[in-house]
């Protein structure tokens, strides 16, 4: 060890091993990728010995719900292999709802109970069966009472699952148009022209054309 390094070391005493273990633990936890010993050393205070801290940390996590594991030449914290069955929730792929579906859902939320004809009238375009089925499958809408009008059409209402997902206490708490505008929420709306050029499905394009024709 060179003279200058020795001097520096005495100036910046390495923290106790217990503290070093904490540091390695925090870094491994928060890093998006496995971390090498060299990287650990670079991030920890001068004089720290991450390799030794890792030995201690690894031992500490033995038999726990998560373990310190070596991935190539780097280290990471991973779920204990026998507990993989608990991670089913994490095996979910999220996709954005189609525009037709979100509009239909919005109309039901604001106008519930709403019949299909009413949804179509408000959207100004036919609602495909698939859209309603999809929302039913997601359990965001369900059937309400039949409307006591000729044909006794079924109505749709939103579910508790819908309220949970959108963080609402009740559908009545949805802000009205005036409030949306006051909150500036209408500002992000693309212009009608931009919508036409957008990535919308055919169903919507048809609707738009129809709309602008008259």
């Amino acid at each position: 060890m060179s003279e200058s390094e020795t001097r520096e070391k005495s100036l910046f005493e390495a923290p106790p091993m217990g503290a070093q273990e904490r540091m390695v633990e925090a870094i491994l936890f928060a890093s998006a990728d496995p971390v090498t010993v060299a990287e650990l050393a670079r991030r920890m205070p001068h004089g720290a010995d991450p390799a030794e801290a890792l030995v201690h940390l690894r031992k500490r996590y033995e038999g726990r719900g998560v373990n310190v594991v070596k991935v190539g030449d780097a280290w990471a914290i991973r779920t204990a292999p026998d507990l993989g069955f608990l991670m089913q929730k994490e095996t979910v792929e999220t996709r954005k709802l189609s525009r037709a579906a979100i509009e239909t859902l919005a109309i039901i939320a604001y106008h519930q109970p709403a019949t299909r004809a009413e949804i179509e009238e408000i959207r100004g375009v036919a609602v495909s069966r698939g859209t309603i089925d999809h929302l039913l499958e997601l359990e965001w809408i369900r059937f309400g009472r039949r409307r006591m009008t000729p044909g006794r059409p079924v109505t749709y209402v939103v579910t508790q699952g819908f309220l949970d997902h959108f963080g609402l206490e009740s559908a009545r708490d949805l802000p009205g148009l005036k409030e949306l505008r006051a909150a500036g929420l209408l500002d992000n709306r693309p212009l009608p022209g931009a919508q036409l050029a957008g990535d919308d499905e055919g169903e919507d394009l048809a609707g738009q054309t129809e709309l602008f024709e008259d």
Partner: protein
Amino acid sequence: MSDPQGFQEDVLSVSDRLAAEALIVDVDGFEGPLDLLLMLSRTQKVDLRKISVLQLAEQYLGFVDKAKTLRIELAADYLVMAAWLAFLKSRLLLPPDPTDEGPSGEELAAHLAFQLERLQAMREAAARLMARDQMGRDFFARGIPEDVMRVRRVSYSATLLDLMQAYARIRTRDEFRPYAFDREHVFTMEQALERMRGLIGFAGEWTDLSSYLPDGWTADPSRRRSATAATFAATLELAKQGQIELRQGETFAPISIRRKPT
């Protein structure tokens, strides 16, 4: 009105003037009149609970006067506050009118002091909140959430914002719809032209344009407007084609037409 503070706005010293300008130039930096009042209140160097609201009102009114002498335009809400403070000042200075049932000057002053104290308290609370350890800066969430396993299920997500914007988009679509006429109440220029072509053969004399309006289009104002516009446009077209002549005595006078003498 007497001014116990002896505020001398017309004998501004250079330093006073500079100070005032510095304050006023910064007026955009104030988040409204209450914020400005809070700033002014600091010059009294007392606890907000012991503040002299009368003195504060005078400081504010002085500020507004200076802004006027410096020809700086203040936003309307600053002027509304000035008017209210002038009212408050008069309430505080004049003996109470026993017939007046409204709140006393003291009550209004106490409320203003409360508002200032509350705003100050919220400012401090906000600062304390932001000074807390924050996620992503001081402490961290899991860097590798274990969503790396096989995809088993597709979950569809949408945010509340998506939902509300979708609804807003549908409900405000009409506002952006290109203006479409209600055909039933619109008399088109083509219709007018056709009608005029059939009639000008009989228009040897100067005749008021309005007499050419079709039947059933004169009673309802909107129908009448539409028919008049279309008929006028048609006469211009016919004049351009050299078939008729137009004349108008003066601006807004009735317009007359006749067949162009051949």
